[in-house]
């Protein structure tokens, strides 16, 4: 897929911007705080509808304004698409609206029309961070990939929240209602576990291969799905039965702890290097190489599943890495159709078809590679 144009209106430090984008490698070069990452953030929002830098959407609206709009025109396998995401101040919060080819659509219908794989400096915590960091990684990839996944995830989370409120005693204890919530959790949780299992199997293979290329086979990276509820086989029946049995087991302890203690909201993704936990024992260099392999794998799995290449977005990652790793990463991703990279200086190892954009105080100037 190709993003041909992006237009911003009162988004972050941009008043108005209308920019044509090229296939291949697009590099946004500029000093810090000039707007490189803001532009990349906007492009990512066209795919995910969310900022990769903040959960506080109001931050994306230009200071002193009420409404920020990001528009994009892209060509995907199914044809041309026009996407827009608007963030409006609304009382003390914000309201986001999405349009697809000029029609208002719900978030679920906007998400994943343009697929993006982003790689930002905070991703380097994928190896060392808490399980929640890795769950967020899985959720972000799967939600773009399967519309059903996003819906089940939303349903699952809402049900956990309702069940927790019931367990906390916001309304009179009601065992039948608790059973209703458990039944819904089993139904949607089973879908989440099966989707994660399938995705991680594909991811593990691609990550192992990429890692072997990076380390010339010196170490073996193993990526495994580590579900909170263990199941015997990745089938609906087996997973649902295991989850159901587990929920029955924990009824007493959930009542005592006033909280849902079992299910995919406590899943993990296990990363090991030659059988040793990467988070606990890996050096910083080993963790970085593993994360690079994981990101290359995410890209290749997403490409394979969609049967077309997603956009690759790299925010300041190349400068975080040493030159050798950065070049190896871009080589390893291989035949992306379109990538967007931010950097404070022009990377030395640019491909010949790269297009440079100088970004200075929210003005963007396209420049030929010298």
């Amino acid at each position: 897929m190709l993003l041909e144009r992006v237009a911003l209106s009162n988004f972050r430090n941009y008043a108005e911007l209308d920019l044509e984008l090229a296939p291949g490698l697009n590099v946004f070069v500029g000093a810090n705080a000039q707007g490189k990452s803001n532009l990349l953030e906007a492009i990512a929002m066209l795919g995910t509808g969310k900022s990769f830098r903040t959960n506080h959407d109001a931050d994306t609206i230009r200071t002193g304004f009420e409404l920020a709009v990001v528009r994009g025109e892209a060509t995907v396998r199914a044809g041309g698409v026009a996407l827009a995401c608007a963030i409006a101040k609304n009382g003390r919060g914000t309201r986001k609206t999405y349009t697809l080819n000029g029609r208002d659509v719900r978030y679920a219908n906007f998400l994943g029309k343009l697929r993006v794989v982003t790689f930002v400096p905070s991703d380097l915590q994928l190896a060392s961070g808490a399980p929640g960091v890795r769950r967020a990684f899985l959720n972000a990839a799967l939600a773009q990939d399967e519309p059903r996944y996003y819906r089940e995830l939303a349903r699952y989370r809402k049900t956990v929240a309702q069940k927790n409120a019931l367990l906390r005693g916001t309304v009179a204890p009601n065992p039948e209602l608790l059973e209703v919530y458990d039944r819904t959790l089993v139904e949607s949780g089973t879908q989440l576990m099966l989707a994660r299992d399938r995705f991680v199997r594909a991811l593990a293979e691609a990550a192992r291969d990429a890692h072997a290329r990076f380390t010339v086979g010196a170490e073996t990276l193993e990526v495994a799905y580590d579900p909170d509820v263990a199941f015997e086989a990745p089938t609906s029946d087996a997973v649902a039965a295991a989850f159901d049995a587990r929920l029955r087991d924990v009824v007493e302890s959930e009542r005592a702890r006033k909280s849902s203690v079992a299910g995919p909201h406590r899943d993990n993704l296990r990363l090991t290097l030659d059988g040793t936990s990467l988070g606990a024992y890996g050096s910083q260099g080993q963790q970085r190489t593993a994360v690079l392999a994981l990101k290359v794998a995410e890209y290749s799995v997403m490409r394979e599943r969609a049967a077309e290449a997603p956009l690759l977005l790299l925010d300041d990652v190349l400068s975080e890495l040493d030159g050798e790793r950065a070049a190896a990463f871009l080589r390893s991703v291989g035949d992306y159709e379109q990538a967007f990279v931010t950097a404070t200086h022009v990377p030395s190892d640019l491909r010949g078809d790269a297009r440079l954009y100088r970004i200075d105080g929210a003005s963007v100037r396209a420049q030929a590679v010298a």
Partner: protein
Amino acid sequence: MAGPVAALINEFSKLPTVGPKTAARLVFYLLNRPRHEAQSLAEAILRVKDRVRFCSVCHCLTESDPCDLCTDPDRDAATICVVAEAKDVYAIERTGAFKGRYHVLGGLISPMDGIGPAQLHVKELVERIGQQSPHELIIATNPNAEGEATALYLSRLLQPLGTKVTRLAYGLPIGGDLDYADEVTLAKALEGRTTL
């Protein structure tokens, strides 16, 4: 700004979906209209508060108790449609496609908002079924998380009473384009397909 104008803006902006800007627009609109229009608006509001009550049978809004829907002999008492709010009764009535009776729950189960079955007209529904033994109960709650949970809870609760419990089908919006329907709606519509 003058006291009475500010006071009315303040009153309007307490209404749902009305912000201060809209409230001000409404007030200046009314200022430009003849007195009798303002009077009939004020009286209509008071009439609603003075005369409209909840029906003791179905909990819908009514001026007489039981309401016209509950006393209409042409309506089938053996079919009861369960809805969350009174406004849902008006929505279904506008279709003209339903000739049974209603039961308004007064909301949906949502412990996060402090609403459990005890806060809704659930006990009254069970009693009503016990007294009237209808053939069918149609649960017409919203297809969201709270609507689903409420429907599941009711069907579980009512199972021992032996009444047939059904749920509204999920489907595609009429007049819409298939390729604009979101994937989940389309999948649900496929699951709920019917024979021609």
